[in-house]
């Protein structure tokens, strides 16, 4: 059975939307691990991240979460540690836990609003990240 929840945000901004989403989550998760889901390439996290020609990005909260996801899969102990973005010409899909933790839910809602307005998402400060 396929798990998780997919939040589909209509947008025609493509790569720009993907970059905005990834930049925004790294504000929330400063130790995030960013991977191209198709190639497996780990991407450098910086304020000027470029995602042209990439379509599917995984963002793990931190290196430990990235390692545990490989070992355990979607285990409840890993809730709130992965956000998965997929971009197309018509939308940005944000794949999250079936029952997301409040921080992730708030992030997705802020992202939805930001994509409509073209600004970087601001939600909780990094200190509030659940460890």
């Amino acid at each position, binding site marked *: *059975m*396929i*798990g*998780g*929840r*997919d939040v*589909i945000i209509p947008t025609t901004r493509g790569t720009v939307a993907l970059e905005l989403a990834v930049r925004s989550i790294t504000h929330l998760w400063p130790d995030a691990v960013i*991977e191209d*889901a*198709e*190639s*497996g390439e780990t991407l450098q996290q910086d304020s000027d991240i470029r995602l042209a020609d990439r*379509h*599917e990005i*995984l963002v*793990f909260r931190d290196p430990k979460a990235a390692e545990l*996801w*490989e070992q*355990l*899969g*979607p*285990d409840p102990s890993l809730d709130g540690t*992965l956000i*998965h973005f*997929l*971009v*197309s010409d018509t*939308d*940005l*899909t944000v*794949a999250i*836990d*079936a*029952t997301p933790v409040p921080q992730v839910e708030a992030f997705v809602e802020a992202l939805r609003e930001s994509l409509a307005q073209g600004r970087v998402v601001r939600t909780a400060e990094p200190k509030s990240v659940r460890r």
Partner: protein
Amino acid sequence: MLHYTDAVGHKAIASQVKWIFKAAQPPGGRPFGAYFTTLRPDAHRFSARTRIPKAKQAFVFSFDGDTGLHPIEGGKGAYIFWSPVDYEVDDPRQSYNGPTEALP
């Protein structure tokens, strides 16, 4: 096309000449249905991309064709498909069932 399941699910489906994948209600507000993927188990970050629990990755059914299946809404529709009703696969379409680690 691939369908992953656990030992109990494998036994129930494989015991029939015609495989029948039962539609069910998944978590997360997805539509009621039977779900499939084209992602092989060795795809990069398979667990993270499909969110299939490890226990449900133990066995796999592989079959040809996708008649009656629909891509799910959004970006994952590139590799995840579903049927809103029980999905039947008759013998000529069946190619493999068994432990996922032995998938040809």
